[in-house]
């Protein structure tokens, strides 16, 4: 089992007013799974993703990643896991402004011990079909291309898991479909994908959909009508 969550809770103490965001979430994710976390805004799905993605710590409960309890890890060790084992794709792309596509993808490599930064970054960009955009600045490309750069950046350190937080939220439907196709292909190549979305259509690319409401999992279902990755040609390619 790649990810094992047992009774994870998260509380925020806001000047004495305690807000419970997660109320005992237990969840297992197998390696190679394509999981979608669904729920309305405020349900706690983003908080859950942050905890699974090592950006935040739970208030209580145990989290085993690759059979290792992460409770004992310090900030630097968590930073190392974020760098080497997982990749993030955000709704608003979060590329560095005034920086080339290539340098954006190189960024996570600068925090790792890996060598041959240029080569690895070029390979990752080729994998998302942007091998011909290396020297473009991040503000000279379209939204869909930006998100593909972000995927290349998530991919470049060769992680086990890719977390995608509303990856199509800022995209038109066609660019969104391209992005989902790429994520589907990465999953079929064996990578675990955890997708957070409030959009049922997007969630249906996954093998399994869990639904969160008010900090608890209310539904955990196998996705029977999984969308096939349609081969849409992107004119940009």
């Amino acid at each position, binding site marked *: 089992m790649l990810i094992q969550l047992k009774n994870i809770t998260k509380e925020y103490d806001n000047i004495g007013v305690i807000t419970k965001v997660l109320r005992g979430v237990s969840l297992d994710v197998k390696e190679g799974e394509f999981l979608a976390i669904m729920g309305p805004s405020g349900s706690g799905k983003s908080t859950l993703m*942050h905890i699974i*993605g090592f*950006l*935040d710590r739970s208030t209580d409960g145990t989290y085993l990643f690759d059979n290792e309890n992460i409770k004992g890890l310090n*900030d*630097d060790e968590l*930073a*190392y896991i*974020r*760098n*080497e084992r997982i990749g*993030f794709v*955000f709704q*608003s792309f*979060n590329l*560095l402004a*005034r*920086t080339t596509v290539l*340098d954006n993808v190189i*960024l*996570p490599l*600068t*925090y*790792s011990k890996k060598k041959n930064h240029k080569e690895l970054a070029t390979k990752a960009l080729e994998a998302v079909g942007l091998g011909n955009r290396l020297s473009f600045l991040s503000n000279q490309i379209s939204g869909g291309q930006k998100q593909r750069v972000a995927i290349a*950046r998530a991919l470049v*350190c060769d992680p086990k898991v890719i977390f995608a937080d509303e990856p199509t939220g800022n995209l038109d439907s066609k660019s969104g479909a391209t992005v989902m196709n790429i994520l589907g292909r990465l999953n079929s190549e064996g990578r675990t994908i955890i997708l957070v979305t409030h959009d049922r259509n997007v969630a249906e690319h996954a093998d399994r959909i869990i639904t969160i409401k008010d900090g608890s999992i209310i539904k955990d279902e196998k996705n029977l009508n999984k969308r096939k990755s349609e081969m849409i040609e992107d004119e940009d390619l």
Partner: protein
Amino acid sequence: MKSYLLQAKRGITHNKSRTFLTALGIIIGIGTVVLVFSVGEGFKSYINAQVDAFGSNTIFIETSVPASTKDLANGASDSGNVNSSAMNAVPVTTLKNRDVKDVRSIPNVKNSYGASMGQEVVSYKGISKNIFIFGADASRFDVDKGIIALGRPYSEEEDKSLAQVTILGADIASDLFGDTDPLGKYIRVGNYNFEVIGVYERKGSTGISNDDKQIFIPVSTLQKKILGIDYLFYAVVELYDNSKAKISALDVSEVLRRNHNITDPSRDDFKVNTQEESLSVFNTILQAITFLLIAIALISLIVGGVGVMNIMYVVVTERIGEIGLKKALGARNKDILFEFLIEAVLLTLLGGIIGILGGALFAYIISKVAESFGFSWKFIVPIYGVVISLSISMIIGIIFGVFPARNASKLNPIEALNKE
């Protein structure tokens, strides 16, 4: 390390005018530091030129109003015999040619000469000028390093026989004779005709006097024929071994006291200065000015540093989203810390480099102005000044960058990401 530099460079080049304004305090501060160092060195080169003119192994005898007389004059028990007679209305007339000869009996004394000065109208073929006339023993030519460009020095015999011979300063020579050869010509000095036997090489102004605008004649001729006096204004003593200058100065004082019948040193009518003592006065002044200017520069640097700190806080706030992203991508706290710290250091270093160039330019202008006034002033930017300036600017970057950088590194990645 290279990636830290890249990130820092990205930050600095982002808003160039803001970067420049932020660095301005550092630029001014470092510029002042370099200016002070450079002008200090220039001033030293000027002082050394003055010292060299007298020869480096010399001690200097000047006349001085005895303390007791001065007490009577101004009714104050002031500090010793520091006023030279030149400063006083009453000239001290006790320093004689005999004193200059007697000090040569001191073992460490190699040579000596006495000198007097006067002012007289000098004319040649209808051109007249009221100029300074400098009279010295013939031995001056062995002690001082002035170079006679044309002709010859006068001899001891000429001095003794009150010969009417003169050596011209470079400016006087050209003023009176233009392009014609002055050697062998006669000029009128007061009521006497003097034969021109030499012309000095151009020396430049010393700030107080200008040798180029004087004429030089034997001291006895000056005393007897022009001024009608029998005393000297000052005397210069050349030593074999300058390391024994202090003892030799005491010996010289003793000879003079014996000659002047003085038993109580507080009633000395002269003052003996070693080269070291003369230099130490200049050095004290120089140090005082340096300290003052460095203090001003430090204030500017601190103000500049606070400006850098202020902007770095703003920059951290501006880049919260970026910091969150970098943390999500695996940047450790210390990676973020170094990125911001290096950005701050790069900023102050940039300011430091511009400051060094600006300060050096200013010092160059000062040296040119000084030269145009005839001072022998060298333009020097000392290496130690550059090294110190660069170190200071880096240290300021570290000191004033570390708090904003720590703030940035301690940010919670999620909060930072959500701020975007």
